[in-house]
């Protein structure tokens, strides 16, 4: 491994560990302020204010959900209309073929069904989950990331990334520990 350490290609990035959400948030702000762009933070629960600190772009999930939900309405109502008016019209209870009040409940349910499925599936897809392997798990201390430790990773793809300087910069943030993340 040591021979590879001279090149950054085998590195995923440089990771600093913090003891609290506040320290992580502060570190994220300062890292962003120092000009780093490809930065990610890892925490056992969502840290409020992190979206702004890392300047994350607005999530497209709401838009997808809106499209999914409207498609659900159209599909549900369309199905009912086609079945009851065009494909197999049957007179039941003296009601018109196109009984729109009676079509509302099913169209309503399909709206929610497709909207909800879109929310979950688009979230997983955007996040690239399921993901069987990720380099951050190579860091030994990362085995506490889901319990009570907080991590900040500057990725090697960042234009400003430099092994020595980035390490020095992270150490300047007073973390618990700084470690290299191998690919």
């Amino acid at each position, binding site marked *: 491994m040591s021979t590879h350490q001279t090149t950054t290609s085998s590195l995923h990035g440089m990771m600093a560990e913090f003891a609290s959400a506040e320290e992580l948030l502060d570190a994220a702000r300062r890292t962003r302020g120092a000009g780093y762009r490809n930065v990610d933070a890892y925490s056992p629960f969502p840290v409020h204010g992190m979206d702004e600190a890392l300047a994350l772009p607005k999530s497209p999930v709401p838009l997808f959900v809106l499209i999914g939900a409207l498609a659900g309405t159209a599909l549900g109502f369309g199905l009912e209309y086609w079945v009851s008016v065009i494909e197999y019209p049957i007179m039941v209870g*003296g009601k018109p073929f196109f009984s729109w009040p009676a079509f509302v*409940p099913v169209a309503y349910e399909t709206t929610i069904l497709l909207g909800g499925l879109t929310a979950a599936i688009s979230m997983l897809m955007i996040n690239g989950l399921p993901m069987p392997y990720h380099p951050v798990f190579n860091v030994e201390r990362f085995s506490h990331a889901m319990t009570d430790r907080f991590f900040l990773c500057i990725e090697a793809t960042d234009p400003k990334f430099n092994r020595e300087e980035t390490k020095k910069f992270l150490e300047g943030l007073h973390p618990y520990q700084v470690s290299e993340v191998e690919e």
Partner: protein
Amino acid sequence: MNNADSNRALLEGAQKRWLTIGVAGALLCAAGGFMNAEQFFRSYLFGFMFWFNLTLGCLAGVMTHNLTGGDWGIATRRQLEAGMRVLPLMALLFLPILFGVPKIYEWANPEHVAHSAILQQKAGYLNQSFFGIRAFVYFSIWLTLANLLYKWSGELERNPSLAIVRRMENLSGPGILIFFLTSTLAAFDWVMSLEPHWYSTIYGLLFIVGQGLAMLAFMIAVTTWLSNRGALSEAVGTKNFHDLGKLMHGFVVLWTYGSFSQFLIIWSANLPEETIWYAHRIAGGWKLIAIGLAVFHFLVPFFLLLIRNNKMKSNILVKIAGLILFMRFVDLYWFISPAFNTNGLGLHWLDLAAPVGIGGLWLATFYGQLRKRSLAPLPDPFAEAEQAMERA
């Protein structure tokens, strides 16, 4: 100090302006009453019911806030209390209806009753003296609730303590229950019995939801007005409006839910004694109003309020609230007027004069009440204790 003086001047100005409009409207109505007594009482009932619903909505709002707390109420508490303090005026304004019962209600017309077995069977409940007694009981209950709550919140202001908060909570719990029952029965008595053969068990709830919605929209309107003029503390901000907007959104959905449920159940069962109510309300021009309700009481505000920004910016939110207040008028009109105009839309000028006149008097009383106490949020010893504990 300066701020308090400017507030007083602001509210006094508003009070005078609305009083002028109210008196002018009342005179117009009186003139209309001499020309066409029957139409006067019908229009008067419509005007009365709108402002009455708002008043009761404010009473329910105060009690709900006592029980649940929440940012929406912190910003609007004083306005809600002032709104509930208009109740004595509404009790007074109810008297003309009491006199007009034979002109308004079919069940009070002996000729109609003589021809209807159903009305004869209902006569034990739907008769003039019992109607009056019931109204007296409702108003006594509401006035007692409003007076006690107002008195205690005054005590809370002077001497904040958990005991007073508890006392207000203890009254508000049963108070809400009593409000639900009396408000439901009042809706049956004053509006549903316009068509005395017809009945619907969800009717009271539809009225209560309408009261809540009118209250929220009015609170958004008046709070924006006050805060734009710098009359409210700086604590009133985006968060409060966001909460009010969310609540209004919820109530728009609730209104739609209740209205559509009633429609779907009656439409599906298709029993003539029930469908007649809708038949009257889609006859002639009424159909247009019905469609207008679906579009402007539900679709438009629903989608506008989905957008977060519209709920947070008070100057956008107030426009949506204005639309909803207007649609509350229309909805109530669609509930009341087709009972008299079964063949189609029949708009009389008194239908406009009555709500404006009563509204002028209502708003003048409202601003007068608002003037009596500070506009700063009520102290909340309970929340302070909780915060102290969370910090510990």
